[in-house]
Structure formats: C-alpha cells, structure tokens
C-alpha cells in the first residue's frame, strides 16, 4: 500500500498518457490494392534538367535541392513501397551552392534583386573563368542537371570541365571524357523513373531572344528530338520499367517572357522623360531589331525577356554599337536608329515558331510515352492553367512575377510551392496511368518568393 502511495504520481502519469494516446482519432489511409500493375518504386531515379535538380532563382542551393520536386515525389513513394532517394547535395557549409538571386528590396513596388555570394560550393574555375562546383560522386537518385538538353545528353565531353559544370560535378575525376549523360542516367539499375528533358532544347533558344550563339541556345529540330527522345526512353525502359515523362511548357506561360511588356517599358521611359521635362513629347514606340528588319516598332505581341529590364539599357545614349564599337547617341530602344537588340526580344514571328515547335515536340513526347506505357505529367497544360491564375489551398497563384507565388526570381524556374504543385501533377499522372495510390504532396508546406 505504501509502495502504491509512493508511486501514485507515476500511476497517474501512466494513466494520463494512456488517455492522451487513446484521444487521438485515426483516419484510415487506404493504399491497399492500390498498385494493380505492381509498379516498383523501390529505386526511383529522376532524369532531367534544372527543374529536376531543384534549381531556382538562377541558381542551385542545398535548400533548393532539398525542395526539388523529385524529392517530394520520392517521399510520397516511400509511403507506398519506395526506397531511399539520394540527391547530390552540396556540403552543409557550402549551402548556397552556385549562388542565386534574392529579393533585396521593393522600391515603389519595383523589385530590386541581389546575388548571394557567400557559402558557395565553388571549387575552382574553368579556363574561360566559369565556376566549377564541389563534386558529389556517390550514388544518387536525382540525376537532374541544370542546363542539360536532350541533344547534349548524347554528346561526349559534356561531363568535362569544358562542358556542363553541374554534370561534371557528378562524375569522378577519372571519368572518361566521352561519358555521356544518357549513359550516366541509364546505368543506375532503376525500377522507376521520371524524365523531363527537352525544355532547354527549345527554351535555351527562346530565352536568348531566339539568337543562337553556342550549343546551349540552339533550337532542336523535330527530327533530332524524336530520334533522341525515343532512344533515351528506350534505354530507360529496357527492363520494362515504368515511369513518367513531362511535357515542355509554353514560352507564354513563364514570367521570363510575359513580365516586361512594351507598354510597361514605354510607361517607364515616359515617366522618366516627363520628370525631366514636363512638356516633352512622350515616346510612342519601342524599336526592336529582328531577323528580318534592321528596326521596327514593337507590338504587344513581341515579348521582351525579363533580364532586359534589370539590364537598364532602355533610353541609354552612351552604348556602343556591338558591330562597329562606336557610341550610338540615339536613345536605346526609343529611336529607330538604335533598336533593342534581337537577343532581348522574342518577337512575334519567333514566338510563333517556338510555340509551334513546343506543340510538335509535346506530341512526340506523348506518342513515345504511349508506346512505352508511361505516364505523362503534362506540365505544358499545367503552366497554361497557371497562366490564367487559380486558387490552391487558399493561395492565389498565377504566372505573375513574384506575386504569382509559382515562379522564382529568374522567371523560369519554380518556387518550392511551385515545385510542390508540379510534384502533384506527377502524382496525378502516375496514379491515373497505373491506378496507384501515391499520395499528394502538401503544398501548404512550401513557400513562394521570399520577401525582404
């Protein structure tokens, strides 16, 4: 009895604990019978470009890697039989990776961007002064390489210091220079894969205003695309593996092309002009150089790329003509004698061509996926839906720069929230194709653009 009294607090504690535990209501998670085709998630690999790697704000950081969409997908797969998902993380102390853009301030509603330059994972420089990143050569499941193109995936040398630094960091020092990305990606003994290559084969060209200067900004032909795409997918499905492929988003869906408009540029230029001279005649046109005309007045269908705004060139009278090296005194972009360079504008004709190409390539993607019984995550449709804006979990999302919550500061890559919503496009596609019960990612756990 004494002993009982001595321990009474303990007993009450146990009783309270038992009570608290029984308090918890349970909701059944029914994943039984949810995999009629025996899809094997045990070794999932993610093949792709920057979107797959977790790239955002013009850079790749440790945090971005952690919040990559394949990682979110893999966490859901784990709940239905998936295995470990390893990513080529930057070291903890080099968490800012390549460095990236951040929002420094808003001045009169204008975003002022800065660049993060501390805690970088840069180990050296290439001959042409480009950064080389700290390597990660252990086993990985996320094979996303920023900048990787479908055509480049078959080219030797891309994994060397002369090639793509994000691919180079994944290869051991003694890797042969001939190592291709397709070989790298198709020798991982995977059981399931996601594939999202092809964007850069079109968008690399478009984001440079449809001007080709090197292999990163050429426009892939339909024929090359079909051959390479089929080849890559055939290798990935050589053991009848299941997987999901992504379509290529439309250029008009991303703020990189839709934020800086002709009207916004004119309004800005005229505000500056009238501040200096209230009686001045306002500018009526922005002049651009195109492939077919040395100059013409821009229309609302010509798309200026996002960096044109931050470059601060409009109206400048001290810029050297790139061809002659002589200063052109006409205000840049505001006078026919000094039109905006072709590389800053995806003009109407170029946009049309790029859009048609994307549609054609997406048709190929769907055909190949169909023939290999793969799921299709239709990112093209998803981002077109984002374009008109909608609500998700009580958050307004759209393709508006910064305020749309989906796109990061570079205007092409996504925010963690954007990647989470994209992960759910993959979840839905996989479930629809294979009748699996892969769970949805909790979008509310991920944020949009961080404000100062």
């Amino acid at each position, binding site marked *: 009895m004494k002993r009982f009294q001595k321990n009474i607090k303990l007993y009450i504690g146990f009783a309270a604990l038992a*009570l*608290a535990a*029984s*308090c*918890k*209501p*349970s*909701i059944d*998670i029914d*994943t039984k019978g949810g995999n009629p085709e025996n899809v094997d998630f045990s070794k999932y690999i993610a093949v792709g470009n920057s979107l797959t790697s977790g790239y955002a704000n013009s850079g790749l950081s440790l*945090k971005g890697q952690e919040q990559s969409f394949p990682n979110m997908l893999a966490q*859901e797969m784990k*709940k*239905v039989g998936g295995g470990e998902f390893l990513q080529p993380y930057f070291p903890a102390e080099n968490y800012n990776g390549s460095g990236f853009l*951040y*929002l420094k*301030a*808003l001045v009169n*509603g*204008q*975003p002022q961007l800065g660049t993060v330059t501390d805690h970088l994972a840069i180990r050296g420089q290439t001959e042409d002064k480009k950064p080389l990143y700290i390597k990660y050569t252990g086993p990985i499941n996320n094979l996303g390489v920023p900048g990787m193109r479908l055509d480049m995936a078959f080219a030797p040398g891309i994994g060397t210091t002369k090639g793509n630094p994000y691919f180079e960091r994944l290869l051991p020092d003694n890797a042969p220079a001939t190592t291709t990305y397709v070989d790298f990606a198709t020798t991982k003994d995977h059981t399931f894969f996601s594939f999202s290559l092809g964007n850069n084969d079109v968008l690399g060209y478009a984001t440079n205003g449809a001007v080709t200067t090197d292999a990163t900004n050429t426009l892939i032909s339909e024929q090359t695309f079909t051959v390479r795409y089929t080849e890559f997918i055939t290798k990935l499905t050589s053991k009848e593996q299941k997987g999901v492929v992504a379509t290529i988003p439309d250029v008009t869906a991303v703020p990189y092309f839709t*934020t*800086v408009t002709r009207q*916004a*540029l004119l*309004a*800005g230029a005229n*505000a500056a002009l009238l501040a200096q001279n209230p009686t001045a005649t306002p500018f009526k046109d922005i002049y651009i150089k195109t492939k077919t005309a040395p100059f013409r007045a821009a229309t609302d269908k010509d798309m200026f790329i996002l960096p044109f*705004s931050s470059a601060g060139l409009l109206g400048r009278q001290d810029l050297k003509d790139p061809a002659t090296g002589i200063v052109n005194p006409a205000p840049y972009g505001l006078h026919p004698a000094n039109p905006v360079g072709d590389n800053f504008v995806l003009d109407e004709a170029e946009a049309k061509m790029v859009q048609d190409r994307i549609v054609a390539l997406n048709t190929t993607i769907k055909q190949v996926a169909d023939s290999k019984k793969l799921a299709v995550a239709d990112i093209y449709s998803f981002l077109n839906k984002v374009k008109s804006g909608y*609500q*998700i*979990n*009580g*958050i*307004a999302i759209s393709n508006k*720069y*910064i*305020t749309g*919550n989906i796109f990061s500061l570079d205007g092409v890559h996504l925010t*963690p929230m954007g990647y989470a919503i994209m992960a759910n496009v993959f*979840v839905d596609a996989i479930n629809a194709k294979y009748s699996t*019960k*892969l*769970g*949805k990612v*909790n*979008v*509310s*756990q991920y*944020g*949009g*653009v*961080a*404000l*100062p």
Partner: protein
Amino acid sequence: MKKLLFSILCASPSLLFAQGSQVNTQGVRALGMAGAGSALFTDETSIFYNPGGLAKMDHNAVSAGISTVMYRSAFKESGSNQVYNTRSQVTPPFSVFATFGPDNARWKAGLGVYTPYGGAVDWGDSWPGKYELNHLKLRAIYIQPTISYKLTDNLSVGAGFVYNIGMVDLARSLPLFLTDGSSAHAKLTGTGTGIGYNVGAHYNFDNNVAISLSYRSKVVTKLKKGDAEFTVPDAVAASFPDTKFSAELPLPASLNLGLSVPVSDKVDIVADGTFIQYNIYKKLVFDYADNTPLLQDTEQIKNYKNAFSGKVGVNYKANEKLAVRAGVGYVKTPVDKDYVYAETPDNDRIMGALGLSYAINDKFSLHAAYVLQKLKERTVTSPVTQIEGAYKTNIHAPSISFTYKW
C-alpha cells in the same frame, strides 16, 4: 516594369468561434450521465441546468469543479497519404456555484461562474489548411446571479441573469513568405462581453417523478477593440498595420426538457432533450479598424442549422456515501456540410459517460465524471481554402468537483 504593381491578393484573416465544439461540463454529477439529469439533481448546479430547481434545495452549498477537455482532431486531405493531428490542447473549463438562502424559506438565491463554451484547436503551421487556421483558443465565462422560488411544494421556478465575458486567441498563416522560408501570419486576440438570461421550472410529482423545463437565451457577445497583429515581411508591413478589430458572435438559445423517473429506492433513470437554436448564427463579419488594399474586412458564411441533443442516464445510489452513474448521448451537429471550418470540424457526435459521487462526510462530497465524445468522420471541402479532406475528432473530458454544504 516600372509599373509592376506589387499587389498580393490574400484574404484577410477571419475569425470564428468554436460554437459547435460545445462541451458542457458545468455539473459533474450530470456529466456522469452524459449531461442528462436536469430533473434529478436539484442542487447548486441547477443554476446552470435549470434555475427553477434551485429552490428545491433543502440546504446551502458551494461547489467548485474543473474539467480537462482534450480535443484531438485529425485531418487527411483527399488524395494524400498523410494524416495531420491537432497538437494536444487542454482547455480547462471550470465552474463555481454557490447558493444563499435561509432555512425552510420558499426562495433561494445563487451565483454561478462557469464556462459554457470553449475549445482549443492547434493545427500548427504545416498542415494543408494553415492558410485557414493555425490555432484557435476560445473561452466564454458566464457570470450568472440567480433567484429561484417555490410556488408550491411540487413546483418551483427560477431565473438568472447572464453576463458573458468571451475571450479569443486565433492565428492563421498568410501566403507571404519571409526570408527564412516561413510564412507570414496573423494573430488576433480579444475580449468581448454579452448579456442574456436563463429561466426554468421544475416540477416533481408525488411519486418523485420529476420534470425540468428550462430556457437559456441567446447571448450576443460583442468583441470590440481586439488586437490584430501581423508578422509579415518588412516590404509589405505597411499593408498590414497592427490594428484593432471588432466582431459579433451570437451564442445560441436553447430549450431543455428533462425527466427523471425513480425505478427503485436506489435507481433513477433520467433523460434530457435539448433544442439549440443555432440558426441565428448566419455569418461572421470581421471588421478591421484600419483597412488597406491587402487587409479587408471579411464575411464568413456560417448558416448554422438548429441542433438537437438527447441524453439518457442512470444513477445508482450504492449506499449512503456512494452513488455511481452512467449515460449516453447523441448530438446532431448544427454545422452544415458546406460550412465546415477548421476550428470547428464538427459533425454528429455520440458520447458516453461514467461518474460517481462520494460523500466524504456530512459536509464534503466529491464528484468525478469522465466523458468521451466521438465525432463521426466527415469529408468536406473547406469554404476558405477549397481543400477537400476528412476530419475526425475525439473529445475526452475528465472532470472533478467538490461540494461543501451546510
């Protein structure tokens, strides 16, 4: 680009009181029978259950009770394989009742201070519905002076005046993001007051069958000058000034009919039915003293329906000192399927209760009760976030009270 407008559309925080989460724990004796027993017990807790029964007391008493109401809610978004639970929250409802009156008088006066409504849910800030609610703590304290009069030996009536102090503490996430990746949030705290009344009649037949009829008026609690505080990025701080808010919350009227039937010297069977006039709760308007383009007044549609609860119980007097009891009850929810909010993921509920009373001596007695309420699982679409998912809630409420009589 110069004209890039930095406008962020986000709904203003909204406030809702957890009306549906009503847990009555005022009388620990009745609680042992799931809340039935308004006709059986004519004691100091009649101040709450039926002021009409108070004059039937042949003594005076003071009692103090406390409960531990533990809400545990779970949520699973449709298509998700993750269940989110509310963090364990304990709201301690309390009640103090005291009676005053000369011996053998026909009248008796009393004072009750008790918490008729209250709840606390804490979903945290990582669940899918965080832009609807992080947490809500709500408490209403009723202060009720009461007078009761015995018209005949069988029939007594009574009335009480209710003064309510309501307190609220609510937080929700805002879809704006700080540099550490966390989301912004709004926190609202306030206190309001309201008044109402409570009347009743108690009749017992010569064979000791008793009937209790009571009516509790609505109490419209007005919150004025509550504090609205926002944790937002500096860049948008001007759009979210710390400000004041006002809101109005109608707590519903209810009509209760109770019956108690002695089936032997030792055993009484009791039943109570309550009609709750929840349909006065149409909407909740939330008015900020300072509005900005991003901080607008809100209006949430509630459209509560009238609700009903039924409870039956049995009381067994084991001996002079000990009485044990048990009861079951059913509560029809006032919350319509289309208006289920995260702070009150209500549904029809069943409850079961056990209780006992023990007379320590002539003056002191101890009462204990334990109630378990189970709310049926309910799959709904949030009117705020449009998230579809299933809610399920268990409520455990152990209670204890002491009575001193003279």
